[in-house]
């Protein structure tokens, strides 16, 4: 007790932040119990205690609904493709930048590559929509000139996911490369020096020195991606999709949003959200444990 009193200043300091986490994170965790109740759309949380318990009704409705497989499948496919293309891209980008000898040129290209990261998804989606507009869109019109067919890219199930993946890579490649470039800058130059004396060329040096030296960072970042597998890009999809492409574009998060906040099925949507949160917890927790085991600090 004495020790706690001695540290009272620090407890006072921590208090506002802890209260914030309690109210805005722990209360919603308790609030997720509405998934096991039937909450009325008019009362919201006020009707929490009066609402009847219904057990697993909403979960069963979700798992037996026609949307269940689509939504899960879309989430994993979109997220998986984003990892497949979006994960190696910044590593390759960093490897290429690392080979640029003119420092000023390297810095300019790096700075420009960060630009998309600073732009909101609303603006990015606006630009995508403008470029792909069926009339007057630069990309659509150019393709039209060559092939004579006017394609509605954003409304087409065959193209929609590719647009998501491409814009994701475009937006993240530069920013994600920072961490790899940082790791590369701490490689001992003596390693390259001795390799050069042994007659290694640049490709060999990149393969045998640079890549192994950053492999730890690569593994940590990969685990991070896996931990977030169920986050397939909520805001991006919400801003770009339309009913015509729901079949391939609807992910768990967008489904929760529509069912909960548009159709006002609070309890059902909360059940779907909780379903996701539990799986995400297992993924994140495992990824973090693995990262910790690999050494040093891990994701935390």
């Amino acid at each position, binding site marked *: 007790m004495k020790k706690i009193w001695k540290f009272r200043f620090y407890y006072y300091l*921590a208090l506002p932040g802890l209260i914030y986490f309690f109210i805005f994170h722990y209360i919603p965790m308790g609030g997720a119990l509405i998934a096991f109740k039937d909450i009325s759309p008019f009362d919201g949380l006020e009707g929490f205690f009066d609402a009847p318990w219904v057990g697993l009704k909403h979960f069963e409705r979700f798992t037996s609904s026609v949307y269940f497989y689509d939504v899960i499948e879309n989430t994993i496919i979109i997220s998986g493709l984003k990892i497949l293309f979006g994960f190696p891209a910044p590593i390759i980008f960093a490897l290429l930048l690392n080979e640029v000898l003119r420092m000023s040129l390297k810095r300019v290209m790096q700075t420009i590559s960060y630009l998309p990261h600073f732009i909101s998804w609303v603006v990015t989606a606006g630009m995508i*929509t403008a470029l792909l507009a069926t*009339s*007057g869109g630069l990309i659509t019109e150019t393709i039209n000139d060559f092939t004579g067919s006017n394609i509605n890219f954003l409304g087409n199930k065959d193209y929609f996911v590719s647009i998501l993946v491409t814009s994701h890579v475009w937006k993240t490649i530069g920013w994600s490369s920072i961490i790899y470039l940082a790791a590369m800058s701490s490689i001992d130059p003596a390693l390259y020096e001795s390799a050069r004396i042994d007659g290694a*060329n640049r490709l060999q040096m990149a393969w045998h020195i640079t890549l192994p030296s950053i492999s730890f960072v690569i593994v940590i970042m990969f685990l991070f991606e896996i931990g977030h597998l169920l986050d397939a890009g909520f805001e991006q999809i919400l801003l770009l999709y339309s009913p015509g492409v729901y079949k391939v574009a609807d992910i768990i998060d967008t489904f929760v949003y529509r069912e909960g906040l548009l159709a006002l099925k609070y309890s059902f949507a909360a059940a779907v959200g909780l379903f996701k949160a539990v799986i995400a917890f297992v993924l994140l927790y495992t990824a973090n444990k693995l990262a910790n085991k690999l050494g040093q600090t891990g994701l935390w």
Partner: protein
Amino acid sequence: MKSYYRTETFWNYIIVGILLILTLSFLLPFIIVLSTSFISEAEWARRGGHVLYPQKISMTAYDILFGKSYVLFNAYQVTFLRVTLGTFSNLVFTTTLAYALAQRDLPYRIPLTFFVFFTMVFNGGLIPQFLLVDFLNLRNTIFALFVPMLVNGWYFLIMRNFFMNIPKDLIDAAIIDGASPFKILTSVVLPLSMPVLATIGLFYAVYHWNEWFYASIYITDNEHKPMQIILRGLLNQATMEGVDNISFREEPPPAASLKSALIIFSTVPILVVYPFVQRYFVKGIMVGGVKG
């Protein structure tokens, strides 16, 4: 000849060439948007969307946006208020919590830190969050735009790591001089932490400037809509009727150029600032050793 393809110069050109194409692809969408914003109705109709650069610069779209719209002005004000108020409270709450939990001898430090960690791996989901904000009557107030996101777990960790790495000698010296914990925080720790405070502050500020989703669910009343909401609404419709008080002259600009002007209008502050501040961002990522 065999050696030519192996020479450093050859590969330098290939690598720089690939990188230049990539770099151009980052810039191109912005160049197109900028050009489109300067285009007149006649030229747009004549060229049918094949616009990399305008042949004649028309400022009509900007005249309309600057001069006539109360909606945009108000949205800018809301966003400005959100960014300043939000970033300030974010920094206060994050710094105090991070500094307290950076004290290695603090009793119950581990469980308290876990209390924060846990929220990073598990959450109640969108619906309970929304219902809570609704229950607290925060909807359609400026508070809905920053109170529910006061402390970001990652930024908390970056700051805590930074504070933990401040050399203990500096603190000990201040204690010997008889400084109170409050004095140590304000006159030793905070001055040393300016770079990390600037970085995290900028992270938060960009977040508030760009954030759209939570604003879209918490704010339904036009008076309190931040710029991204208005932007989204206008970009999403075919015509530009939503910008009120617009009286068109003889030759109205095409919807495409008004939309582009709107994008430029809302993005220019970021475009102007980011080349100068990105260095802090990069440093911040290094300090935390984590991804922003």
